[in-house]
């Protein structure tokens, strides 16, 4: 505890003015709780990886099964995030620009993937797209099988990632200066030209941020995917599932090595997203 105490005593000097109370205590509690619940447990992944030699570590994370799981997790998340940008833009556009019956309900339902437990989403999507399901029975004759294939993984990730794009783009679309768009129109630009030259550049940062958020969520997603994926090693096995499988086989070292790679990737993504969001916030200010 002494490093925290040390930090606290020097912390009191940072206070801008001595006006509001509770800085030392609140910062101390925040650091303590953060350390206890988040940082110390996460540090275990790094520490336990040191049980392995470098050679063993590389062997664990570059086995054919691990490599294909990484490829599937990152690949499916990338495709799903791209689809989310298109579908999310459509929904955000229609909700923020047009009036139509049921708009309030659709607007509220956009957050369903965040509110609905992932296991429920998983069994619901699987049932819908199974060969005999409501949608699966129509897709099968067309030669499209979604459930129990990599396509199912992409679909589940599109579901969980959708709110991230809509909720990032929607406020920007609502705040956009209509005068600029109307000026373009009155100068003879077609609606498509106006969208491509005026609207799209304005919302591009929000779209990129939404893409990154959806991608970050998709890479680590587990619950909604495992029911619909089929979970065939080398074909439709995502990295989080491989980690669980290795844990169940008491291969702690293997699970930890894979987890470290994923942690580094998600930490890098988090930093990128923070950077994007601070740029977005700076743009929003007049």
């Amino acid at each position, binding site marked *: 505890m002494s490093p925290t105490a040390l930090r606290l005593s020097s912390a009191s000097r940072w206070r801008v003015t001595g006006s509001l109370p509770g800085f030392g205590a609140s910062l101390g509690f925040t650091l303590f709780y953060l350390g206890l*619940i988040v940082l110390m447990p996460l540090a275990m992944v790094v520490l336990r990886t040191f049980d392995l030699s470098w050679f063993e570590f590389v062997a664990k994370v570059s086995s054919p099964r691990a490599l294909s799981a990484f490829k599937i997790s990152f690949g499916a998340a990338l495709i799903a995030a791209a689809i989310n940008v298109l579908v999310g833009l459509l929904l955000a556009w229609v909700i923020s620009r*047009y009036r139509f019956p049921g708009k309030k309900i659709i607007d509220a339902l956009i957050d369903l993937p965040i509110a609905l437990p992932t296991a*429920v989403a998983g069994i619901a999507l699987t049932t819908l797209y199974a060969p005999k399901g409501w949608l699966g029975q129509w897709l099968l004759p067309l030669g499209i099988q979604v459930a129990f294939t990599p396509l199912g993984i992409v679909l589940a990730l599109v579901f969980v990632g959708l709110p991230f794009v809509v909720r990032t783009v929607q406020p920007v679309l609502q705040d956009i200066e209509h005068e600029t768009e109307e000026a373009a129109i009155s100068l003879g630009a077609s609606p498509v030209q106006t969208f491509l030259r005026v609207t799209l550049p304005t919302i591009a940062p929000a779209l990129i941020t939404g893409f990154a958020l959806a991608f970050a969520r998709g890479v680590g*997603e587990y619950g909604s995917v495992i029911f619909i994926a089929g979970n065939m090693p080398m074909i439709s096995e995502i990295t989080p599932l491989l980690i669980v499988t290795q844990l169940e086989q008491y291969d702690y070292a293997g699970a930890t090595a894979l987890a470290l790679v994923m942690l580094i990737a998600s930490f890098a993504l988090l930093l990128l997203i923070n950077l994007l969001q601070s740029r977005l916030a700076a743009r929003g200010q007049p």
Partner: protein
Amino acid sequence: MKRYGEGRQWPQTLLIVAALVAAGVLLVLPLLVVLTGAVAKGWTVYFAAIHERAALAALQLTLTVAAIAVPLNLVFGVVAAWCIAKFEFPGRSALITLIDLPLAVSPVISGLIYVLLFGAQGVFGGWLGEHGFRIIFAVPGIVLATIFVTFPFVARELIPVMQQQGREYEEAALSLGASGWQMFRRVTLPNIKWGLLYGVILCNARAMGEFGAVSVVSGHIRGKTNTLPLHVEILYNEYNHTAAFAVASLLALLALITLALKSWVEARARSERQTAIIARADEDLL
């Protein structure tokens, strides 16, 4: 007032129809398939599935876990937001990033880290075993994993709200002789109540619905360490689909209540902000 994009009849209709189809397929159908699947064999079977002993035990555990995790993260959220929003200190933005970290981590890894700490092979596993404490494959592990995944929810809602409020009101209260606690209760709390409620609603939904992290630490002991989402998985994997959807319908209901509350809080917060603006404008006129 006509906005750009309005009034052009058929492209607009086309976009609205496309958005409705996308929302219908991606959001409404999964919800419908859960609700119809739950009552597919009639209401008697539905109520029997919910009243079954293991289902009730799972419901009780889910409520217990949320009742511990949500208040803890609520207190943390208020305290962390206080020091981050009201004071300037070096490392402040790094602290915000660290608080957001659990959102970027795969749920599976959120469970794994506690297995590495407290599992039989974990750092404290030996000591815990000797003294007869069980954390992993027991309720404390489920609580810890849930606290981890819901860690940032309240804090990240409150930080921007508190920052926007500034420090003047609190400073005024103190200079008028209020104690720290009076200042918090009479000035800070009324200002942040909607943000606080919003964060708690999201935190609770995730706490009750978490699957991946809880799945890793639970051990899936029926009637003992199964939460509702884990119980859904077990029933589904046993091909007891009707019962799985019946239990899932409870979680879907929770999601719908969450969305309704969320929309209500957003609307209340918006109308209060407008009233405040009008009141301020009136004062200016006088």
